[in-house]
């Protein structure tokens, strides 16, 4: 007998609102369906009424983890529209923050994977190490989440000798610990047993469904925007594209740990070859009519911004495609014929960032497919009715009512 089960939009196993509707046969998932839009904020529409400088800080707020990815993708696109050549030192610092963000995002993911796999201590370890890189980002930019480092023509803050030394020292520590995790991911039998063979995605399917990032690379496709379409200073940096051919969650974990090690090498290279000079060049305020297609390798995969300008200081159109949206069709393919207990693990393995993938404010009650949908005004009425019953003036009324 087949059951239909809906998971989310609010669910303890998912960290952000998304609705998964699954058709089950016993414990096996026969079909899966996604409903998006619980976190849609209308950023694309909003961007059309803001200037390029304002959009710089708007695009950063598309996501809280890969904030720098979106900002850099937008900045690079607008720089091309402005026909601006950014300052060399600025580009090095920009690339440095890109890689630091990748390190913090991958460490975060490893922790989440550990937690979903039931390996809680792994979660604690990686998140402890993540603080090291968060501190680095804090010393460089002054912020832990939205770094606001980019500006058209370069970056906004320089790094000095003390910061450089601090980063190099911290890297040594991170390197040792990451090597330990790689060893652990490859040898710990319980961890291996939980991750291997889960969420299979064949190479052909991954290509056909246009997956991106570590999800695609773990299926044996060496696609990396940093190599294929180099931006910033990636054409000067020696690094390898990490792949795995196990096509499962374990492969995705291994790819991310290997990418961490590559990122440390890139950061070291950048800091040792940091050119002297200005960190930014002056940028014009207005942008002449043109269009650009900007690509960026975010920690989760290829991030894409399409920007069209119309000669004013505001964009005509900004299209954002975050890596998570590209990975959804592949996720459905991975869930099919899997076990219900593997859902959080498979879903976490694409490193979903729902706020990235969605950009209109809305509210509904999706307890089940056919049950009634509440509009915002109805919800408001319900809340008002509830609060009217409570006598606030009566001092005996205590929280939680």
């Amino acid at each position, binding site marked *: 007998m087949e059951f239909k089960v809906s998971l989310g939009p609010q669910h303890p196993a998912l960290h952000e609102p998304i609705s998964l509707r699954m058709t089950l046969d016993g414990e096996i998932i026969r079909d899966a369906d996604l409903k*998006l839009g619980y976190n849609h904020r209308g950023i694309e*529409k909003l961007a059309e009424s803001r200037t390029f400088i304002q959009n710089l800080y708007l695009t950063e707020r598309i996501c809280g983890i890969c904030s720098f990815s979106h900002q850099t993708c937008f900045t690079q696109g607008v720089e091309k529209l402005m026909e601006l050549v950014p300052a060399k030192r600025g580009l090095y610092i920009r690339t440095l923050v890109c890689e630091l963000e990748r390190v913090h995002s991958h460490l975060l993911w490893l922790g989440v994977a550990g937690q979903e796999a039931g390996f809680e201590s792994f979660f604690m370890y990686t998140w402890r190490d993540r603080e090291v890189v968060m501190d680095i980002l804090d010393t460089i930019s002054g912020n832990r989440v939205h770094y606001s480092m980019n500006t058209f023509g370069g970056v906004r803050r320089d790094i000095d000798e003390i910061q450089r030394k601090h980063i190099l020292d911290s890297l040594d520590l991170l390197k040792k610990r990451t090597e330990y995790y790689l060893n652990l991911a490859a040898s710990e039998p319980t961890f291996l047993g939980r991750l291997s063979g889960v969420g299979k995605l064949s190479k052909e399917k991954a290509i056909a469904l246009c997956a991106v990032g570590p999800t695609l690379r773990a299926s044996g496709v060496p696609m990396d925007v940093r190599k294929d*379409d180099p931006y910033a200073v990636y054409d000067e940096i020696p690094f390898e594209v990490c792949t795995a051919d196990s096509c499962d969650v374990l492969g995705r974990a291994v790819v991310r740990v290997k990418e961490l090690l590559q990122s440390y090498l890139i950061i070291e290279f950048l800091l040792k070859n940091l050119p002297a000079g200005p960190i930014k060049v002056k940028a014009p305020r207005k942008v002449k009519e043109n269009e650009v297609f900007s690509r960026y390798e975010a920690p989760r995969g290829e991030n894409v911004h*399409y920007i069209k300008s119309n000669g004013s200081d505001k964009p005509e159109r900004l299209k954002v495609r975050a890596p998570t*949206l590209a990975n959804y069709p*592949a996720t459905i393919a991975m869930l099919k014929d899997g076990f219900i207990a593997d859902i959080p693990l498979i879903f976490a393995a694409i490193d979903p960032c729902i706020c990235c993938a969605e950009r209109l404010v809305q509210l509904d009650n*999706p307890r089940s497919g056919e049950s009634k949908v509440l509009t915002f005004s109805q919800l408001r009425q319900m809340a008002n009715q509830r609060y009217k019953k409570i006598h606030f003036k009566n001092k005996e009324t205590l929280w939680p009512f």
Partner: protein
Amino acid sequence: MNAEAIVQKISSDIKDKIQEVSLAAPLRINVKVDREKLLAVLQYLKEQLGFTHLATISGVDLGESFEVIYHLASHLATVNVRILTPRSAPTIPSTVSIIPGAILYERELQDMFGLVVQNIPDPRPLLLADDWPAGEYPLRKDWHFNRPAEKIPGGK
């Protein structure tokens, strides 16, 4: 094969199917096609030149018509295949039969621009709310967000 060679190959191989092909920027190839010939061009790019990855589909409101851009990528270059569809009859063919990963982008276009994607396997709304009024497409230029007047209960 570099981007110039790809431009040469496209212009010699499928000259009759495309309107124009140009190298807009390093690694960015622009191809303009009629909407009737879109599928044939995508098929050619996928099978002959290895552009298997569809990065996204962008819609742009140009007033009289909509421009739909298919951003295809391979490890060699990026091809932006663009078609125009009139505002009076905004239909585009579905590309899911060639690129299965296009489904979410096509559903997004239907929601945001009110384009009608012909032969789409799954036409349900994707991003907009379940009680979103019919016939309102937020990313069209003539659509403006009007914030409903805030009524403060018990207020002035």
